[in-house]
């Protein structure tokens, strides 16, 4: 498979659960992108390789890195439209749009994530309860497909492929550029209020009560033991009213480098959680925070991920109806008592949208758990998987790299529709990742 402009390298998913030797290319011209695509049997697109599950690589596919396509192609201040290449990072995009007091609010959790990656994953940020997923900000897409060539996708042109591409985990072709409808942002700083919660029930009530059309609400909860399970904080970020001149963000660098020995364990997690919780209790309940701290909370805190060590972690993100939430959490706690999993992060937020195809999107509560990658935790997670049908839970295949084909088929009711339409569009199924192969998408 080794060809000009390709190299072989070892690549891992962000959660470190899957590592493979892959063939990799990074074209920097349109002609090269075309030539490499025409000469490759199987392809998958990759950006900053920050997706938790292996969406950007596969043993049999050539990983096409699109980060050299990182230019701003069109900008209409009056219409609030911007057309950018898919390899542009959110850091680069915001450095430009915020100067004009514009943004898209559906920002993924790390600034070096690419536009193409966020569109393929249908990313949803902290504001997903108000603004939904990134799908809502996309006007059109320019796609390149090995067999179909260049395609303009929008609600008016190739609508079906447009629909398949947004949140289509990169399986419809290479997203080359995207046009966004921008929103006005009143300020580049936020006021953060925090509420102390004693348990999950209280946390859920605060999230639902405080939800309005202007604030981002999410929680941090303890899950280090059953006694303190759910105790935590609810954060409410509101955009400030005072507009000050925007200062460009400094150049971002990925600082992800797992430590040789994992540092997260039951004792260290408990200690950090206690310190964090009590520190937040004694500090001011309302404070002003800058844009980066609110929107990209893990920037500068990469050690959280590095502490998992070489074996990494597994994140489980679940969408559940608020009416079914309490009963699910009760069963979760019963299994927790039995299996005693090691959970480093537990968070809840609200989400809006409509579930379709393989998109992680709905009008539901979104629960996130980070687990240490251990056999005991995997066993616990498999028991939780068994509850998905009972509580009509949708697990994220973007975050959870361990989801089985059976679980996927049961929970993603519209995935057959996606598969059929995709097969109809691309009968050779050129674009394939490790995840799409495992889930037989």
């Amino acid at each position, binding site marked *: 498979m*080794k060809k*000009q*402009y*390709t*190299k072989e390298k070892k690549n891992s998913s962000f959660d470190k659960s899957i590592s493979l030797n892959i063939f990799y*290319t*990074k*074209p*920097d*011209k*349109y*002609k*090269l992108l075309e030539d490499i695509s025409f000469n490759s049997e199987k392809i998958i697109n990759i950006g900053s390789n920050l997706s938790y599950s292996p969406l950007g690589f596969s043993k049999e596919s050539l990983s096409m890195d699109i980060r*050299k*396509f990182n*230019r*701003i*192609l*069109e*900008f209409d201040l009056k219409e609030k439209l911007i057309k950018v*290449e898919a390899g542009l990072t959110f850091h680069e995009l915001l450095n*430009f749009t915020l100067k004009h007091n514009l943004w898209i609010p559906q920002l993924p959790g790390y600034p070096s994530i690419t536009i193409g990656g966020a569109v393929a994953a249908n990313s949803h940020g902290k504001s997903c309860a108000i603004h939904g997923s990134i799908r809502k900000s996309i006007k059109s897409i320019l796609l390149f497909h090995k067999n179909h060539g260049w395609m303009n996708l929008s609600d008016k042109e190739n609508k079906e492929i447009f629909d398949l591409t947004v949140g289509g985990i990169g399986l419809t072709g290479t997203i080359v550029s995207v046009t966004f409808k921008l929103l006005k942002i009143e300020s580049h700083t936020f006021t953060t209020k925090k509420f102390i919660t004693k348990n999950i029930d209280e946390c859920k009530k605060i999230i639902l009560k405080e939800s309005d059309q202007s604030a981002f609400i999410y929680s941090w909860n303890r899950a280090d033991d059953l006694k303190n399970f759910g105790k935590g904080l609810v954060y409410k970020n509101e955009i400030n009213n005072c507009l000050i001149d925007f200062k460009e963000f400094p150049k971002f660098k990925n600082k992800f480098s797992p430590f040789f020995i994992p540092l997260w364990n039951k004792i260290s997690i408990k200690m950090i959680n206690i310190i964090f919780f009590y520190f937040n209790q004694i500090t001011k309940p309302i404070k002003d925070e800058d844009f980066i701290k609110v929107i990209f909370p893990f920037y500068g805190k990469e050690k959280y991920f590095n502490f998992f060590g070489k074996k990494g972690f597994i994140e489980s993100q679940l969408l559940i109806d608020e009416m079914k939430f309490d009963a699910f959490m009760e069963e979760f706690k019963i299994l927790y008592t039995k299996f005693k999993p090691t959970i480093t992060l537990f968070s809840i937020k609200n989400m809006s949208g409509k579930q379709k195809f393989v998109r992680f999107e709905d009008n539901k509560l979104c629960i996130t758990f980070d687990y240490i990658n251990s056999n005991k935790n995997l066993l616990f997670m498999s028991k939780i998987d068994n509850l998905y049908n009972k509580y009509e839970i949708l697990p994220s295949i973007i975050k959870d790299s361990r989801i089985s084909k059976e679980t996927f088929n049961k929970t993603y009711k519209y995935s057959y529709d996606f598969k059929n339409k995709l097969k109809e569009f691309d009968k050779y199924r050129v674009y394939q990742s490790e995840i799409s192969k495992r889930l037989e998408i």
Partner: protein
Amino acid sequence: MTYLIIGASSGLGRELANKFAKEKNDLIISSRDERDLKAIRSDLEIKYKINVKCIALDFTSINEIDSKIFTENFPFDQIKGVLFPVGMMFEKDNPLLDSESMQKLLNSNFLSISYTIKKFEKYLASGKNFSIIGFGSVSGFLGRKINSIYAASKRALESYFESLAFDENFKNFNIQFYTLGYLDTNLSFGKDLKLPKGSILTLSKIVFKNREVNFKKTFFPKYWALIYLIIKVLPVSIIRKFSAIINK
């Protein structure tokens, strides 16, 4: 002030375009594929609020140089300098290369550049503070069995730039020539190189900083100066034997 950059669509050329635009210079950028040029133009115009013109041309063709650059509409009076981060390589390049490919390599790596410079001299009679910036290759240090014609062209180009420095007609011009080793571009992508690659971002900053120096001839990355010295001191027969041992 406007700079003409030939070969601006990727690698060093694109980085130079970005650096010169960031420093608020208008640009005329040229390369083969108009799509890449248009994308760069939009990006630089939107970000830096400068003017960028695109010329899509096949630089191996002297006719295209004449018909697309040296036209009546070309703003010669505004041009402050011309940069040639341009080049062409063929995988099959060796001393027995077919003559058509050989001609293309010679043109894009040497003849088209010298032709363009000659034409500019005619249009810019005084040449005061006009910069001509060329880029050679360490492959031109010594003859070689692969990339032979490319290496020969680059050696010719280096000699040509040295000649410009001696020529009375160019005494008011700023002549700069960079002999380039491995750079972090697609030309070196996936190649098993034994020596580290230089950053094109760093190089673009150096080129911009030196743009008004009257004469400059240097290596990038710098360590190639030492390698050059060793190669020039050692007899070719010893280098041949050494090369044979490495290639075994």
